């Protein structure tokens, strides 16, 4: 097989490892890996995830090979295929109630929360992946969404539907304003400043007890009415969330593809050049913060509705970190990566918590670091690259053409080395 021969093993040494991990997973049962104390428990989830990933990657290669005659016909074929892919994803979520029971660890409620995570992550992808602005503070906007619902409910008996409109507006406006100081910060400084935001939420919510209910939070059990499916709230909230998420995804994809997305990418890649070309850097950055904030606010309000309970401890800084981690694992410079990131953040902790209550974070940390070394563009980026590689690797013997994209990144890295050498201060001095 040409693909096997032309594969760039030096750069993608981990790929065979995934396959090996998959084998470990298959053989785990007969080999009694679980019997190994402490480690045995951990091998399972890791190998399982690696197996899943390698199956998907191999599937990608097979699909690319199988569809080769169709795809070679031209760009329309590729585009059509992409739409088929979107259709499949939408169908998967649309018919969820039919098979949710069959998916291990899944339930309608968990799927709903996973989709809410996806909404936050899409925002991060726009802001961080395309805009280059690191935010560790998305949890704060999520909290604003939750508290818009809770305070509205507590103080004025506001119907929860309203919060779905008001929360993104408030969070978006706040995000836009937060964008102003953020203009002065770069890279790790921005991460630091936004982390501050995430850290303040819990103490502030506890402090303003008279509005937020303090540590006890606001309980809304059974008090949020729905127009239909009263006997199946989970289903109602699931579809509400899914529809809004679809809206968010379509909006994000359009933003990404249009003028806004191009401007953001230009800013990320070279701010000076972008502003020299007449891009209003400040406005675009602030808007990106605003949009990401609005998405998180909407998700936060929905989350409050679904959980029917809002309290300060839900919004620890760890939540913000988890959002970013989800985005990064999914693939931060992709829109589709958010789907993977959301599912990851909902289900991996769920599956691994049975090992030990701190296992989810430990495992996430390890996966995170491994992903950073092996798939810098996340799972979605990895699959895209596999696809591209399969397509070009099939046509060419030498890894040359398939590797163009990779070569470019390497050159960029070499240049970055020069830039990073001395970069003091958060802004211009």
């Amino acid at each position, binding site marked *: 097989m040409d693909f096997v021969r032309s594969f760039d093993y030096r750069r993608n040494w981990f790929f065979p490892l995934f396959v090996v991990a998959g084998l470990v997973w298959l053989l785990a049962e007969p080999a009694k890996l679980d019997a190994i104390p402490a480690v045995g428990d951990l091998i399972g989830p890791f190998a399982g995830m690696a197996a899943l990933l390698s199956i998907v990657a191999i599937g990608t290669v097979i699909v690319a090979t199988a569809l080769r005659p169709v795809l070679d016909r031209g760009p329309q074929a590729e585009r059509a295929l992409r739409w088929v892919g979107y259709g499949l994803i939408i169908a998967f979520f649309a018919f969820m109630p039919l098979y949710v029971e069959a998916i291990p660890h899944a339930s309608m409620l968990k799927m709903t929360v996973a989709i809410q995570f996806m909404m936050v992550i899409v925002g991060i992808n726009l802001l961080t992946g395309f805009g280059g602005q690191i935010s560790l503070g998305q949890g704060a906007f999520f909290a604003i969404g939750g508290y818009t619902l809770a305070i509205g409910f507590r103080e004025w008996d506001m119907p929860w539907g309203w919060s779905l409109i008001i929360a993104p507006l408030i969070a978006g406006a706040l995000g836009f304003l937060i964008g102003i100081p953020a203009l002065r910060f770069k890279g790790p400084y921005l991460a630091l400043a936004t982390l501050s935001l995430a*850290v303040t939420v819990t103490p502030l919510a506890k402090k303003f007890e008279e509005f937020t209910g303090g540590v006890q939070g606001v309980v809304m059990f059974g008090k949020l009415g729905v127009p239909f499916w009263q006997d199946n709230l989970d289903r109602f909230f699931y579809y509400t969330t899914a529809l809004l998420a679809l809206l968010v995804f379509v909006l994000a994809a359009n933003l990404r593809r249009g003028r806004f997305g191009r401007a953001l990418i230009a800013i990320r890649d070279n701010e000076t050049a972008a502003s020299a070309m007449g891009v209003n850097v400040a406005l675009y950055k602030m808007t990106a913060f605003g949009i990401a904030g609005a998405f998180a606010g909407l998700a936060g309000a929905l989350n409050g509705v679904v959980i029917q309970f809002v309290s300060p401890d839900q919004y620890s800084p760890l939540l913000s970190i988890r959002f970013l981690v989800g985005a990064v694992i999914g693939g931060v410079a992709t829109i589709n990566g958010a789907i993977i990131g959301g599912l990851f953040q909902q289900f991996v902790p769920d599956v691994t918590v049975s090992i030990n209550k701190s296992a989810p*974070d430990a495992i*996430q940390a390890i996966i*995170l670091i491994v992903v950073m070394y092996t798939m810098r563009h996340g799972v979605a980026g990895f699959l895209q690259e596999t696809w591209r590689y399969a397509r070009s690797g099939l046509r060419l013997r030498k890894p040359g053409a398939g590797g163009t994209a990779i070569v470019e990144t390497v050159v960029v890295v070499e240049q970055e080395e020069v830039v990073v050498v*001395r*970069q003091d201060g958060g*802004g211009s001095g």
Partner: protein
Amino acid sequence: MTEFIQLVLAGTANGCIYGLLALALVLIYRSTHIINFGQGEMAMFSTYICWSFLNAGMGYWVAVPLTLILAFAAGIAVQRILIRPVQNAPELTIVIVTLGLYLFFNSLALWIYSGVPKPFPLPTGIRQASWQVGDIFIIPYHLFIFAVLITLMAVLYVLFQRTKLGLGLRAAAAQPASSRLVGINVNWMLALGWGIAAAAGALAGILSAPVVQLEPNFMATILIFSFASATLGGFDSPPGAVVGGIAIGNIVALGGRYIEFIGTQLDIVLALVVIVAVLLIRPAGLFGRQVVQRV
């Protein structure tokens, strides 16, 4: 007035600890331009290691140096194994890897030691009871913290300014490319920097453990205060970090007492206000060198 002095004394003692951890952050930032979000958790984990030694019956004055040596080695290992491969990667990647460190050590501590707070002893030879001078109570342990900090600063000063190794460390941090050309092993210098930083952080953890309770999240707040200290002092200035730490310690102590709204719950907000204000007004901090941003 008495109360004010009392607060300043306590604030300064806490500030020394913030300054120590800030020093660790700054040492790493100066050499590798990384803000290590995992610094606090590495320190926390080292403190647990020290606790384990003490728990096993080792004396304070044996356990602490041993822990520092281990922390030093661990810092080097983390740099060589985890950080070096992504050293030239985009900033997001590096931030993510250090966040990974944060999550990893935090959850590992929770896993191994559980969330139940552990008692951590005062150093042997330091008495619990305070001295009374007029109306003021002086806590011996506070003086001890202060003395440790001063000693460490002196040692680091001599190391960096008066030794050949220090010259190499500074050169490798400031100009890695040129340093390589004069035969300095830059990679090792950066790793040593991480080792020194990890040891300084561990010291901060060990010193603060008797005051606050030792539990897996105990360094999280201290880390935020240290971020504020390093920002205030300037992320590329080690003495700035210490001065910034003492300043933050006092701001928090006095602000919590005299600004009614802040109280004890919102002291962290004070730190954040300082961070944002400094970044807006004087991004390089009080002692940092103002450098025109190169793009």
